[in-house]
């Protein structure tokens, strides 16, 4: 009779503990579900951002701006191959001035410079049939420094880090590129 009672108490304890565990696990899950609503239901624009419309407009206007002799920035870069005193400082004023704060407040997250397409892959082979593997080389300039994502890379590796890139063609091989990283 006594043994029976002991057995019953043991079984009851097991069920009570099991019930407590079930309720604790459920409560934790409910809390997680409620708090994750905050995180997962607020969709930020940057999740889908592939371009920055306003920065792109600023870039086009920048390239159309003439210096005191009337020569546009686009023509200056085309002729000189890199940024000069006028368009370099002007670029800093526009792009770091307007967008640095939006792109994590880090000056090196805003880069403007010349990117040149080469005709070879990383292994030295010709990339004519696979342009996505062609090496892109960026030129360092004294105003924005070195391209933050590396001075050499393929088009694929250039776009591996979340960033916005606006590019305007100078000639067949060269582009002027604005990189905005982060956000």
């Amino acid at each position, binding site marked *: 009779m006594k043994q029976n009672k002991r057995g019953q108490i043991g079984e009851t304890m097991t069920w009570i503990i099991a*019930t407590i565990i079930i309720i604790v696990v459920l409560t934790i*899950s409910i809390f997680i*579900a409620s708090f994750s*609503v905050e995180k997962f239901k607020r969709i*930020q624009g940057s999740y889908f951002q592939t371009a920055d419309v306003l920065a792109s407009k600023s870039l086009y206007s*920048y390239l*159309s701006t*003439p210096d005191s002799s009337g020569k546009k920035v686009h023509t200056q870069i085309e002729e000189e191959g890199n940024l000069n005193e006028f368009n370099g400082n002007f670029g800093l004023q526009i792009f770091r001035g307007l967008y640095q704060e939006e792109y994590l407040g880090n000056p090196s997250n805003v880069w403007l410079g010349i990117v040149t397409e080469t005709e070879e892959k990383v292994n030295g082979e010709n990339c004519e049939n696979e342009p996505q593997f062609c090496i892109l080389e960026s030129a360092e300039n004294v105003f924005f420094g070195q391209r933050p994502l590396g001075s050499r890379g393929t088009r694929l590796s250039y776009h591996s880090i979340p960033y916005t890139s606006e590019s305007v063609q100078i000639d067949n091989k060269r582009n002027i590129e604005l990189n905005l990283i982060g956000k």
Partner: protein
Amino acid sequence: MIKQKMNKKAADKIISVYWFAILFIVAAGIFYMVSSFYGKPYDIRQIEVGLLSDKAADCVSYAGFLREGVLTQGFKDSFLETCGITFGTEDSYGWTDESEYFLQLNFYDFDSYQEASQNSLFEVSAGNQRLQDFCNLKGKGFPVCLERKFYTLDKDGKKYIVKINSIVKKIEKNSQ
């Protein structure tokens, strides 16, 4: 022996009731979790303000230059129609009584522009102006605000900074 058997039957009954209770609690818990997650709408106001700002920028500037007629009273008067923007919302929470949106463009002279500049050369706005008062406040139950700028030129080569301020309220659906 008979008593023991009866005891076992009673214990089994209690356990089945217990099982039903646990089943009910677990089901109710799962139901609550699913409904609390999927019952709330996605808050896309961050995207909305971004789109408003992009649309307004597209409306005033093209290929690096200000569009013709932007800095005129006529543009000011028909701002939303010209830009193809509608501030319509569904008829709930009294949203149709007062606009849930605000959009403002300020044009500053590039050479004299400073971050704290108050006096713009030209200003155009539409929507509910009162929403601006909430933009400096931090917290959940406030409208979403976005202030962005871009550089542009007019046909004569005059340089401008355009500041776009876009606001979406809709807090009743998105800040529960």
